[in-house]
């Protein structure tokens, strides 16, 4: 029951926030913030209460469109709970980071943020494929608005690109879902969209391969992986800060989640055969994304490309078909959510202060704003993969898992660690170190509002870095179901 209430709460708060603008322009912010804080606390309570005997934290199953065997089937297991927690938590970060950024239509802005999040929570908990696809679309439209209305100079281009990429790949998934349901109907005689029923469908290997590809392409577009990644740098660069935080922190994770939850378990044999492609795409993403990150001169674009590199580790981990790799991929999802959210927030904070994202117009900012410098250093170091912080755990587990599968690909993926150091440190140098740029006006440092969320994110990363076991032990029981 819980989850549906959570989703409805987010949807409802969105509507309220929209209309509350008539009272005050600050009110929508507060409504969104309170909603996210409340939902985060709620998730924590569910977390601490622990799962039931079946390993579920919440579940709901109800008829929706019985004519087509479509059900309202929501389940929250450990993986879903973690990601829902990440979603509501980053909701707080997103709202706070955009607190002063929006100048127009404050209510509608928060409406969109809340609705994206509702869609995401749905995606992370839907166990009916039709419902899943429904939520997949729900999260897309508000995101499109966020970029198209509150974006920066090139917002029309970026939002349209984002929309087309997601929509076309989503269409492939829809086709695959319908085909899967139809084939299953022909074999078993029941018309159902249920995850578990379809997982056990008896497909011949050629069909399975084809259907698997439909899902796979949709998910790696969202992830994104090379070669369908090109929407991401544009979308990120143009999106408002909250949009980038949500996009990188959570929306990319829906792609990873889709692969872990749907592609691998539902088309297990086809995926096993496919491992070398999955892993190779991951490695190419790591190296290509890393190199392109180094090439950028735009702070935000650099971080966007670094996301592609980090997401590459997820593919490598999942397609290693090992416990270590899958656990590493899950940890990477969480840790990357924290670290990139922070870096995008930093990019937003800089843009708000300097009205530019160009690093050639920065330089020496440490002198002006030492706190911002130190905070950026922390998150750069985290994303470079420093042991003791979350990202390292994820990437290390991915690599050690992948090593058992393919030495060569792992070695290439490991080279990504060096590349990460190159672009990470160059980001630091070009923005915060070096001779202070005389053209930069006085810049105020982080104060309580921004610093407090940054500290939250830092604590989160340290926690994942030195006590990953708290997450690993939660997902460990799921692994057999996911891998086999």
């Amino acid at each position, binding site marked *: 029951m819980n989850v549906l209430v959570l989703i409805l709460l987010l949807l409802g708060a969105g509507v309220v926030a929209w209309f509350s603008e008539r009272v005050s322009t600050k009110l929508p912010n507060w409504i969104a913030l309170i909603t996210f804080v409340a939902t985060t606390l709620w998730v924590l309570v569910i977390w601490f209460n622990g799962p039931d005997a079946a390993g579920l934290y919440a579940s709901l199953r109800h008829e929706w469109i019985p004519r087509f065997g479509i059900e309202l089937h929501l389940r929250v297991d450990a993986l879903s709970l973690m990601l829902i927690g990440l979603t509501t938590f980053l909701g707080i970060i997103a709202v706070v980071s955009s607190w002063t950024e929006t100048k127009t239509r404050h209510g509608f802005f928060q409406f969109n943020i809340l609705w994206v999040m509702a869609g995401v929570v749905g995606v992370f908990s839907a166990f009916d494929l039709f419902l899943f696809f429904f939520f997949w679309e729900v999260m897309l439209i508000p995101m499109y608005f966020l970029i198209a209305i509150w974006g920066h100079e090139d917002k029309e281009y970026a939002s349209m690109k984002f929309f087309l990429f997601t929509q076309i790949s989503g269409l492939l998934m829809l086709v695959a879902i319908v085909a899967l349901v139809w084939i299953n109907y022909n074999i078993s005689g029941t018309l159902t969209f249920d995850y578990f029923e379809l997982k056990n469908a008896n497909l011949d290997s050629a069909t399975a391969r084809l259907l698997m590809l439909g899902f796979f392409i949709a998910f790696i577009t969202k992830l994104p992986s090379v070669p369908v990644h*090109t929407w991401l740098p544009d979308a990120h660069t143009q999106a408002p800060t909250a949009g980038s935080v949500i996009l990188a922190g959570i929306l990319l994770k829906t792609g990873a989640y889709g692969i872990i939850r749907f592609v691998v378990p539902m088309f297990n044999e086809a995926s096993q055969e496919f491992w070398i492609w999955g892993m190779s795409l991951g490695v190419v993403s790591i190296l290509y994304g890393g190199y392109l990150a180094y090439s950028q001169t735009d702070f935000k674009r650099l971080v966007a490309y670094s996301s592609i590199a980090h997401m590459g580790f997820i593919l490598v981990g999942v397609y290693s078909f090992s416990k270590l790799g899958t656990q590493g991929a899950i940890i990477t999802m969480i840790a990357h959510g924290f670290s990139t959210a922070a870096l995008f927030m930093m990019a937003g904070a800089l843009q708000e202060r300097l009205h530019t994202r160009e690093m050639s117009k920065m330089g020496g900012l440490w002198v002006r704003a030492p706190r911002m410098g130190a905070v950026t250093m922390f998150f750069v170091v985290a994303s470079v993969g420093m042991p003791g912080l979350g990202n390292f755990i994820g990437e290390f587990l991915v690599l050690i898992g992948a090593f058992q599968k393919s030495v060569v690909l792992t070695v290439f993926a490991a080279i990504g660690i060096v590349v990460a150091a190159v672009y990470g440190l160059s980001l630091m140098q070009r923005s915060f170190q070096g*001779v202070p740029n005389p053209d930069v006006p006085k810049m105020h440092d982080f104060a309580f509002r921004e610093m407090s969320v940054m500290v939250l994110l830092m604590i989160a990363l340290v926690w994942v870095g030195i006590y990953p076991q708290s997450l690993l032990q939660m997902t460990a029981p799921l692994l057999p179901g996911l891998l086999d």
Partner: protein
Amino acid sequence: MHLLWAIPALPLAGFLILLLTEGRLPRSVVSSIGAGSVGLAALLTGYVAWQVMSSDSAPFTSSSWTWMIVGEFNVSFRLFVDELSLVMVGVITGVGFLIHWYATGYMSEEEGYSRFFCYMNLFVFAMLMLVMGDNLLLLFLGWEGVGLCSYLLIGFFHKVPEFGYAARKAFVVTRVGDTFLIIALFLLFHQVGSLEIQQGLIFARENMSDASMMNTIICLLLLGGAVGKSAQVPLQTWLPDAMAGPTPVSALIHAATMVTAGVYLIARMQDYFMLSQTAMLCVAAVGLVTLFIASFTALVQSDIKRVLAYSTMSQIGYMFFALGVGAWSAGLFHLMTHAFFKALLFLASGSVILAMHHEQNMFKMGGLWKKLPIPFIAMLVGSAALVALPLTSGFFSKDAILLKAWKSDSEFATLFWVVAVIAAFLTSLYTVRMMVLTFFGKPQSEMHELKKESLWHPNRIRTVVPFGLLAVLSIAGGWMGFEFTSDLFGDKGVHAELHFDLIAFLTLGIPFAGIVVGYFVFASDLIDRRNLIKNKMSELLSKFWGNGWGFDWVYDTFVVKPFRFIAQTRLNRNDVVDLFFNLIKFLANLFHHILSMFQTGHVRWYAFTMLGGLLLVLLAVVWV
């Protein structure tokens, strides 16, 4: 032993306090926290050392808690201390404390005082984790941690872009080595099924055979990691540039502790290396080549810190060489004595540099012995140990290495020994040159006015005491450490017998020969130095040596520049892959334009085309 955790926890606490107060504490408090935490850790180390020595239950392990468990993969936070780590911990906390103490004076007039000690304490913590971790992942945590601190401290003066470059270079180059190390970790886990060091060593002893290819690969990967961290050929190029950091940083990180991490790693994984002739040969060769190259380079540097940097490189080369020829204890012994005297040399040079307005060029110094007597004496003591004059600590350790090399059963023993002895000769030569240029001859430029009240004044207690203690260790550390380190690996016997043969005599005499030749070349008027430099050959040679034998040039030309060049091309920056999607967009646009040409809004045009279409259809019908 629960107390073990307190040793790294102290500097960690110092780091956290300094971090969270964001530089708002008064400097005196910062000094007490920064240096005090390391001092306390040193005292605790003393206590632990006494425990270890007086009990038979060594090695000690601490309490542990889980880091992560995934299936069979299981690592925890646990510390492990045996004699080997104790030597390292002693050097890190002991020498580290003296350097911290000195730094409270040295850094007293710099901005970012609190930030400096914050980084320094983090470094000490990370370094302690490196040598105390009982599994390789914990070691790797420390390994990366010290690399990070090295980066932060080299670029401490972050307004200077060159320093930033040096810092990034250090981080990236060592990270190349780290990648080898992490792959070694994967391979070890794959083989052993665990990352625990002791378990791995047992596995090596029991399951690996001498000729095992796998074992050799593991060793070479570990060596790759060690080479990066310890600035050995071919990943040595970052160390001279790392001298951009404040001098106490050079003393602590780039002389006494971090750069010796590679030696520690190999010594720690001894059982693997012992099984592989090839790997041992590679270790020795790496050490020897570095030793040789760095000694020549040190000979033609003009920057006093760069001389010391190349000297460090070459001394670590000795340590690698020692490990490679099986002189394990001697190598570790040299690590310890080198930490003493090189820290002393760096700190003394730091005082000189401050007194000379941050001038590091020795050609602009000269005649300083009278004005800076305390740094002079300190440097003299350090130099004596560096060139291995008899009865100094450096003598004991270097002599042990050379003798062991001579007696090693490698087929290259003689060659090894000859090269090592030549390098010892060169060591004397460049040391004499450094001392002469800095302290003797005519003053070449004005000195800073030394004010009594400035905290960095060489006569103040925060300088004199660290100098004094390090000087005592540089001299007496040899006799004291002798007992302790000679049996680290159960390979004693080299020192037990005294040699009076030709070889022993030669090793003993080489430093003196170097000093005498050095005196004639650099100090006396008997040889015209100008003529020596003037001819073309020596000009070329000195340029070649001075640039570190062209390694930087090769890396720049073949790696860094192409990497940058491609990165900056527009095609690449705008993402080549996007070309494909833009092509789709272009085609869509094209068809849109072609089709929209038919939509003109003129009725006659529509009527005409309708008619035309009708005709076409009719024709088609008639025809077909």
